[in-house]
């Protein structure tokens, strides 16, 4: 049982760190890259929950929104520095995200997905309703860029994309470290059969909550970086469609692999920017892709091309039986 990280992960991380400078010549392409990098952070975090722990968190974007709004409130209303406000906001989002993951202790599969969808709907309604903090449907614009602490000026341009690249690369390496650790193996055994994992002495409750805590940190990091980068957030920036799109990136790239979600985000995240005039088409295109992924390649690009041998069949009964427990 090796605990070494594959070379492909190091190479991908290095490529990600170099990309901002390669794209720096053109602001438009650099922006598309920046959005893709944020989505890599999100997809990597959701992969920890969906790919490795087997829970489908459709409230992921809502958790990102909590962190983003908390950061914006601290920076814009209370004059905190971005670098102080962000960790606080991310921690707050992660704690709330962990609390929202509590239903996962009782529910699995479809029932948890439905529950998380309801939570996402409630969060979106809350973002619209508490307009004192979020400015409602109008949204918050003119978000200041992150400051440079003691120095004058702010993080902008290629510097910002490099910042995003650092977090994306760090996210990938952290998830692969987790997956090679004991925790990662426990998470996978929880995904395969949590009753069995429990009888083997694995603390299923602790594992699930820890997965939610770490996954929510990824959501929050993405949210906190997203708001100043785009310069505008509204409840629509963190609604169910965003959660579904992140899910699609994970599933399209290959759930349960480290690089799959990265590839999925790199391919899918630029689509909205490239189809700017056809933004209505974007949602339909994502819908078609969701159906295509489910029907044609349930294991995603990476799972499809690199893992030819079929996985062992599940231990549950083929029809209903054990799987019908909610």
């Amino acid at each position, binding site marked *: 049982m090796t605990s070494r990280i594959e070379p492909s992960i190091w190479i991908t991380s290095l490529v990600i760190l170099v990309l901002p400078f390669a794209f720096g010549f053109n602001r438009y392409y650099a922006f598309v890259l920046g959005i893709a990098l944020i989505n890599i952070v999100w997809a990597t975090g959701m992969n920890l929950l969906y790919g490795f722990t087997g829970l*489908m968190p459709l409230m992921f974007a809502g958790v990102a929104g909590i962190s983003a709004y908390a950061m914006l409130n601290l920076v814009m209303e209370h004059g905190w520095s971005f670098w102080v406000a962000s960790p606080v906001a991310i921690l707050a989002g992660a704690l709330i995200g962990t609390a929202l993951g509590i*239903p996962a202790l*009782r*529910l699995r*599969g*479809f*029932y948890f*997905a*439905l*529950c998380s*969808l*309801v*939570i996402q*709907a*409630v969060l979106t*309604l809350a973002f619209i309703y508490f307009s004192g903090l979020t400015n409602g449907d109008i949204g918050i614009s003119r978000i200041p860029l992150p400051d440079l602490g003691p120095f004058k000026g702010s993080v902008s341009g290629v510097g910002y994309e490099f910042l995003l690249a650092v977090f994306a690369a760090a996210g990938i390496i952290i998830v692969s470290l987790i997956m090679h650790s004991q925790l990662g193996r426990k998470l996978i055994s929880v995904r395969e059969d949590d009753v069995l994992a429990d009888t083997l002495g694995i603390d299923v409750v602790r594992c699930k909550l820890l997965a939610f805590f770490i996954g929510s940190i990824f959501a929050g990091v993405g949210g906190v970086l997203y708001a100043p980068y785009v310069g505008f957030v509204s409840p629509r920036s963190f609604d169910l*469609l965003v959660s*579904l799109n992140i*899910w699609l990136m994970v*599933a399209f790239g290959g759930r349960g692999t480290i690089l799959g979600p990265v590839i999925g985000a790199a391919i899918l995240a630029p689509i909205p920017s490239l189809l700017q005039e056809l933004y*209505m*088409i974007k*949602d*339909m295109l*994502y*819908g*078609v*892709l*969701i*159906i295509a992924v*489910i*029907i044609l390649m*349930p294991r995603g690009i990476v799972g499809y091309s690199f893992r030819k041998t079929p996985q062992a069949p*599940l231990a*549950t*009964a*083929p*029809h*209903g039986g054990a*799987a019908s427990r*909610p």
Partner: protein
Amino acid sequence: MSDTFLLIALSTISTGLILGAVFALVAAGVTIVYGCIWLPNASNGQIFLLAALVAWSLTANHDVPSALAICLVLAAGIPVAWAVEAVLIRRFYDVPDRNIAYFVMTLGITQILSGVFSITYGLWSDQFSIPPMIDGITFIGLFPMPNNRILVLAIAAAILAALFALLRKHPYGRALRAVFQNREAAALRGVNVRAIYRLSFILGTLTIFAGGLLFASAYSFDLSAAWTMSVTAFAIMIIGGPGSVLGALVIGMVFGFTQAIVSVFASPTIANFSYLGAMLLILLIKPSGLFSR
């Protein structure tokens, strides 16, 4: 007091009955399909809206009489449901955890349909209504009740009654309930499980179509009706118990009256909020629902 109060009470009751019947129909369609095939149809609201919008097109653009338009849309629903079953649904019948795959797939369908609606119907109008099937008003005391809404209520009640009769008495319905309870045992007793799956998908889709058509002929609607209906139908299914048509009927009626009563005092959004809350509560306390056997 007296007259005004009575008028408000009667109008609330009539709205509650019609909304409740529509909710019960759509939720029954969703719950039959989930109980049988394990397909949680998240796109039920869009399908509901699809039926209503096509009927609107027929009446507004082609001058088809409302009653005929409704029958045409219902008839067209059969081949559509059949085709969807053959292309998308059938291939997952043997997958053990298919409900989550179906759930995500229907969310994808939701995205496609809502995109299609917003770039077609959304550009044409923001409120849609279908001319009444019959004219005239009947006075219940002082309260004027349009005959059309009485007819809608009667049709909804008839469809629900027919659905119950089908499930209780008809051999098909009995086979369907056998598959609900235990598909292996049903297969061993000679029930063609796949045929029952197909039948229940078509039946469920038609029931959702009927709900959309009846709603459209009683009230004017807009494109946001789809999302509200999806949430409501899921809440009814979860609270009533997945697979329980009785649960769909009872909880559908409760929700219909809740919506009617809340709308008198406040915005219907609050009713939606309470559905979501009730669904979360049931998911956490008793995920099998109130009416499960």
